[in-house]
Every structure is written in C-alpha cells, then in structure tokens.
C-alpha cells in the first residue's frame, strides 16, 4: 500500500521542471509547523524542488535537525508524499493569490532588506499598493468604543492624506482602522493576515476582508489552506512592523499582540506613537506604558503625518448630525467624554429618568452617543 501511494505521488512530480520555484516554496510553507525560521533553515540546505524530493525519500539527518522532533519530521515526510504540488499551485492561481519568492522581481521591495524577510509572500490585490508611505494602526481586539472610534478616525484621515493603512484585520482596533481607511476612499489599505487567503479569519470580518482584497492588498506568509494557528500571529506582527514607517498603538492591554508589534517595530527603528486613553481603562494600559517610556503621543492624524514628515491632513468632513434638543443638550453636557450609565446622567443633569431615557435614545438615533450595554458613550465622529 505505501509503495502504491508513493508511485501515485510521483506522477505529477515527473513534470517537476515545469513548476516555478514559488510552487515548491508554497508546498514547503504548507508543511506542518513550518514558520519563517524553519523555512529559512530548510532553504539553507537545498533548493525548494530538491528539498521536496528529499523529504519524500529516507530521512536525512540535516532535515531531521531542522524539524527538531522526529515525529514532526515524520509528518513532513507524509505530507511530502501525499501533497500534490501542481494541484496546490493551480489552486493559488485560481484564487488569484500571487506568490513571490525573496529575491525575485515580484517580491515587495520594502521587505527585502528586513531583519527577517519572509522567504515567500502570498498576496491578493494590487502589490503596487505597498509603495507610498505606510502607517500601521494596531491595537487590542477587546477595545472600547473610544478606541474603535479613534482607530476609525485615524484610518480615515490617514487614508485621505494618501497614507496606506497597515493592520492585521483582527477584531476591534484592526477592523476599525481598515473600515476607516475604506471609508475615506483614499490610499488603499494593506492587511497582513496570519492564515491562508482562502478563508476569512475571524469569520465576522468577512466583509472587510473581501473589501480590502478588492480595493487594497492582502499580504501574508501562509499558503492556501493554512489554518489560523496561534504561532502565525506573532510572525504576522513582525511583517506589519516591517511594512510600516510609523506604528500607532490605539488601545492595548498591558500585554497583548499590539505590544509585540511595538517590540518588532523598535527592533527595526520604526517610529512608534501611542494614543492616550482614560488612565483607568485597562484597555489603554499598554499605551500608557509606552507613553511613560517616552514614546510620542498620537492625538490625531496630524501627529502621525508629522512623524512621517508630511504636512497636515485635508479638512475633516463637516459634522452633519442634527443639533440635539434641549434635553439632549443637557444629557450631552452631563455625559462628557467618559462613559456613564443612565443613572449617573440622571444624577448629574437633574432630569427625570424618563426624560433621560428619551433624550439618550434621540441622541443615539442622531448619532451623538452610542449605547453598549449599560454604558452610554459620546461618539466623536459623525457617520
């Protein structure tokens, strides 16, 4: 039985010469637990096509050493026998996913002289997009309304000023930044993703994912079919840091993916800016730590443009929201810019509870406040 499988797998391998080097790289990247470091180590041994043939044969000591563990090598061996490289290559072409190997003309220039350049990148959309100035907007998935508003605003204003917004298409801050960039219809957004481009992750961002692929650029190190495994995201963060001229942290908990991106940015001498938040909000803890360490504050897009050495952004669109009525005005004054619940607003404004309830709902319909659960928050941007 094993002999027969081997024979079957050899048939497409007969035409090995016809497949480009990218196809073999995609196949190597599809091996279980092969990240940037292992891929680099493998490529130091032999050419991709030769490596593949060697993996199908008896175990070689240097390959086993790269795998580290014997059973991982066994998995590679089985994958190398079972996987049809030509078929994988065809799937990439069908999905419109471009594959660029390091050192070939299609490879993003900005990544060429990086500390750890990916040996191969996969992209969907227009690769030319990565040329102009780029700013990464990163932050937590567990963001507050304040954070997602600021991220949206930054994304929109920077895109309008012609700056490519780089982020990771995760929930929370990432999604808000991309949504803002798409809203501006300015410079196209760039998303660096952790899994194969055949499946949107997280599922809830499917719409954003598609929109970025259509109007901007999706970039990643994972071939089609690669699941969103945990270890892929730190590697993804390093590409975000490498792509960006400036990294802006909008909201981050004291330890989080965004802080990892900041560390990668620091290793590459990129400017890092942090958005200040309420000092009591744990969602802003990471930003405040950065600010305390001497990182520059980011209050709006102008701060970012200054760090990029560009002039101010274009005029912000006019506030189109209808003026609040009398009760609404009182509620807004009592609310301020900190979240409050209806009971607090009642105490501060001196209105009746039913008046507060009515006024808040009116403000919400007009776009002045957002209600999330018990909390009522003032919204900065008109939508």
């Amino acid at each position, binding site marked *: 039985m094993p002999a027969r499988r081997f024979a079957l797998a050899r048939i497409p391998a007969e035409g090995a010469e016809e497949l480009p080097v990218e196809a073999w790289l995609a196949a190597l990247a599809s091996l279980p637990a092969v990240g940037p470091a292992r891929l680099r180590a493998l490529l130091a041994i032999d050419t991709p096509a030769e490596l593949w043939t060697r993996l199908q044969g008896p175990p070689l000591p240097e390959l086993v050493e790269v795998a580290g563990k014997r059973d991982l090598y066994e998995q590679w061996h089985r994958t190398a026998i079972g996987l049809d490289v030509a078929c994988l290559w065809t799937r990439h072409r069908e999905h419109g996913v471009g594959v660029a190997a390091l050192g070939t003309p299609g490879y993003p220039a900005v990544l060429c002289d990086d500390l750890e350049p990916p040996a191969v990148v996969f992209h969907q959309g227009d690769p030319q997009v990565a040329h102009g100035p780029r700013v990464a907007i990163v932050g937590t*998935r*567990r*963001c*507050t*309304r*304040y*954070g*997602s508003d600021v991220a*949206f605003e930054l994304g929109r204003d920077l895109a309008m000023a012609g700056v490519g917004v780089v982020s990771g298409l995760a*929930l*929370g801050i990432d*999604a*808000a930044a*991309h*949504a803002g960039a*798409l809203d501006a219809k300015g410079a196209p957004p760039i998303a660096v993703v952790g899994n194969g481009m055949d499946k949107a992750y997280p599922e*809830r*961002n*499917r*719409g*954003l994912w598609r*929109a970025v692929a*259509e*109007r901007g650029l999706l970039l990643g190190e994972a071939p089609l079919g690669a699941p969103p495994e945990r270890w892929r995201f730190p590697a993804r963060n390093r590409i975000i840091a490498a792509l960006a001229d400036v990294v802006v942290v909008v*909201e981050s908990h004291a330890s989080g993916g965004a802080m990892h991106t900041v560390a990668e940015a620091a290793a590459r001498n990129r400017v890092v800016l942090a958005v200040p*938040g*309420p000092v*009591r*909000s*744990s*969602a*802003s803890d990471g930003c405040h730590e950065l600010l305390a360490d001497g990182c520059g504050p980011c209050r709006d897009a102008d701060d970012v443009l200054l760090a990029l050495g560009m002039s101010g952004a274009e005029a912000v669109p006019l506030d189109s929201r209808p003026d609040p009525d009398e009760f609404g005005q009182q509620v807004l004054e009592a609310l301020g810019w*900190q*979240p409050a*619940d*209806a*009971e*607090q607003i*009642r*105490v501060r404004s001196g209105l*009746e*509870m*039913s*008046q507060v*309830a*009515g*006024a*808040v*709902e*009116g403000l919400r*319909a007009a776009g002045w406040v*957002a*209600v*999330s*659960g*018990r*909390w009522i*928050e003032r919204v900065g941007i008109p*939508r």
Partner: protein
Amino acid sequence: MLATIPASVLSGITGHPVSVEVHVSVGLPTFTVVGLPDAACREARDRVRAALLSSGVKWPPGRITVNLAPSGIRKEGPGLDLAIAMGVLVADDQLPAEALADTAFLAELGLDGCLRAVPGVLPQVRCMEANAIVVAPESAAEAALASGPVVRAPSTLQELLSALRGEEAWPDPPVSGLANARDEAVDLADVRGQHMARLGLEVAAAGGHHLLMIGPPGAGKTMLARRLPGLLPPLDESTAIEATMVHSATGLDLPSSGLIRRAPWQAPHHSASMIALVGGGSRTLRPGAVSCAHGGVLFLDEMGEFAPQALDALRQPLEEGVIRVNRATAAASFPARFLLVGAMNPCPCGELGQPGMCRCTPLARLRYARRLSGPLLDRFDLRIHVGRPEVSDLFDAPPGESSAEVRKRVDRARAAARERGAASNSELPDDTLDHLAPLDPDAKSLFSHAIAEGRLTARGFQRVRRVALTLADLAGQEPPLTGGIVAEALFMRTEPVTVAHDPWSLPNARP
C-alpha cells in the same frame, strides 16, 4: 353489608369523583383495597383500622373488601382514608346509612383518629355533587370557596361520629385570619435610587410586559423584583380561583381566607429542571413553577445559568397562558399566565467597571449572549440595565415613592387597557395597534431608524409600541404616541449582552 360513600381524587389540578364501595361479609378476617390504589392509598388499610380502634369503635370481624370506582383511574394519596372508614362503619351497621346521605368525605386519618388536611381540596370539592362535605379543619376555608356543599370540619373521628349519630351538634368551623396573616413587608419606598429599575417595574406592572434586568452582582436585581407583586392589581375572580386550585393541588401555603388574591411570586433556583418549571412528571402530573406563578410573577434569577431546554419550554406558556402536559398515561393542562422577570449579568465577569475594564474576550461574551435564545429574548419587552446605586442616592436622596403611590398609576393604566378591551396593554392584538396607538412623525422616524439599524424586528416594533402605549397611559398622555414616549420605550429595550465594541465588522464595511 354494603356501603357506598362519595369521595374524590386529584389528577393534575382537577378532581375526579370516586365512589368508595365497602363490602363486609362473613369469612376469614381480611381487608383488601382494589381499584388501582397507589401505595399511600393502599396503606389506608392500616391507618383506618388503627384510627377506628383508637376512637373506640369495634372493627368488624370478617372479610372486608373496598373497591374504589371507577376502577380504571389511578387513585393516589391518603385523601380517601376518611371515606373508607365511613364505608366500613356503614357496611357493618354501626352507622345508619341515612345519616350519611349525600355527604362526601375528604381527609387523611391519623392513627389517633384525628383528621388531617390533604392537598387539592378546592378542585376536589368542586367536582363533587354532594350536599355536605366533611374535611379537616385546616381545609375548611378552602373547601368553602367552592360555594357548593355545606362544609363540616370536625377535628377527630369521635367528634364526627357523635355529630353523625345526632348526639352532639356539628363543631363550628375554625375562625380564619390571624394565624396566617403574612402581609407584604416589602415596599418600593425601601429602594434608594435605581430610578431606571423603578421605572421598569412600574411599566411591567402597568402593562404586563415581561422584564429582563441586567446588572452586575449585588446591584439589587432580586430585591427590586421582589417588589413587583406589590405593584400588581389583586387577581380577578376566575384567576384567583385558578391560582388557588394550583396552589392547593401543589400543596403550597394558602392565605388564611383560602383564596389567593395577591399576585403570587415564584422564584425557582436556576438548577430547576424543565419538568419543575413547566409541570409534568412520569405518573402524577404536577403543576410546575409557571403554573404556581399564575396571575403573578415568575422570577428567574441568573437566567443565563438555567438549562437552555428549560428556558425554551417557557415559550408556549408565555404565548398561550396555559401549559398542556402530555404523557403516555395521562394528560393535563394547567393555567400559566404570568409576568416573567429575568435577571442576568451583563457578561461572564459581571462587568464591574466601565467599558475597557471587562476581562471577557469577544468570544466569551458571544457565548454568554447565546445562552438566551433569540425567540425567548424577543419576548422581553423591557430589558433594562441595573447598576449599583449612586452614592448620592444612598445618603442624601429622600426615600422613593411607596408601592401604594405607584400602584395608583398602575391601576389607572390598567383601567385604560380595560377600556381597550384587554387586561393589560401587552395583550392587545397586533391589528388593533394602528388604531389604538397611532404614531406622530417624530415617533415614526425613531422607529424607522431603529428598524434600519437592525435593532428591531417587525414583532419587536409592535412590542415596543405597546410599551410606549403603557408609558403614555402612566404619564396620562393621549395617543398619538410622541417621539419622546417612543424614545423612552426604545431605550428600555437594550441589548442584554454587548457582544463586542465592534460596530465595524460586516455590514458597515462594505464599499
């Protein structure tokens, strides 16, 4: 040699008349009970024999056969004890049959000859066609509610026998009152602050709208809900009888007057099974908590912790006001028209602080939100957030309005609903709303905004409209409904669990 005594048994919450036939004949001394008795019923043999002997009556030597007719239905419980004892005495000629003519018996016997109360006296008395009925003194008030037969309530077998033989007069029925006078000690005036929750309770009581309170642990959700029965109007005649029958059959305490007038309160723990909640059982069909809350309040604390299956079983009674329970051997339908009040935390961590303080991941919140199914959630017209009271409210504010003051407004709103032909606004049919609750332009634009935002379904729209009508009734406003009133009603229907502060996910992001 043969005696037939009318009695009854309970099935579900309805009584079934039973004839107790006793035959005493010459033969070896035996005592058999036939006619599908259960264990408690078969043990009647020993209780009856001991009770008769200790009351100074001779036990007939010979063969005694007791038949419980109709023989096809199962007889459960000890309620036939007294009837069997009487049958034995009549069949043995120790009592004249005429003395017992048209008299039914319904009590358990103690070994010393005392009469003990049994559950479900009211429904059982209602099913019998006797002129007089003998029950234990504790059941006298309840039996009198049937307003049919004359109620006799001797406390012992001896008293009963001497009255039947005409040696002494029937003892007076026990004086009701005093002993059971448990008055509602909880009042809304004890609640400081919490104006949102007070408003929610008032609207729920006035319009019969189901209420979901969402708040961190310790915010006072249970304390607030406990005050809702005090705001509800007293039960009307038929509901009071139905509620009393359920409570009687279930063996719950009845008020001293016998009739339940005050809205009942049921608060089952979240470990309750589906059967405990809606009623049922394998052989004996018992009413569940929903039926015990008939006419009153069913309070489900920690709603997210209930078994999803148990919660979804509430949907039918919420819709129809009755619960029909079917088993292979029996079927019963119990009344279940109640006001549902739920309480839950905003997220698994309880969200003690402000936004940004919650430690739950978006996925954990999403999972928590799914504990309540959409259809069940949709039935809560009022979903309000309850926070911890403001410090200034705890110390400086004057005490809030008392339950009595709020009840005046509730009564006014209920009267307005009655003029529209419903007990409360929540029961108004959809097709009458266009006519009864027209909208002014402001209100229309608020509704269209909420529907466009995806916050409101078509059914949700009608439900909010009913709440707005109740708010208008409470404020003494005439239709059409204004924008302010509708905004208030919309605000009182918030999303229970904030899934994520992530308004950018799918729909807005489309280019």
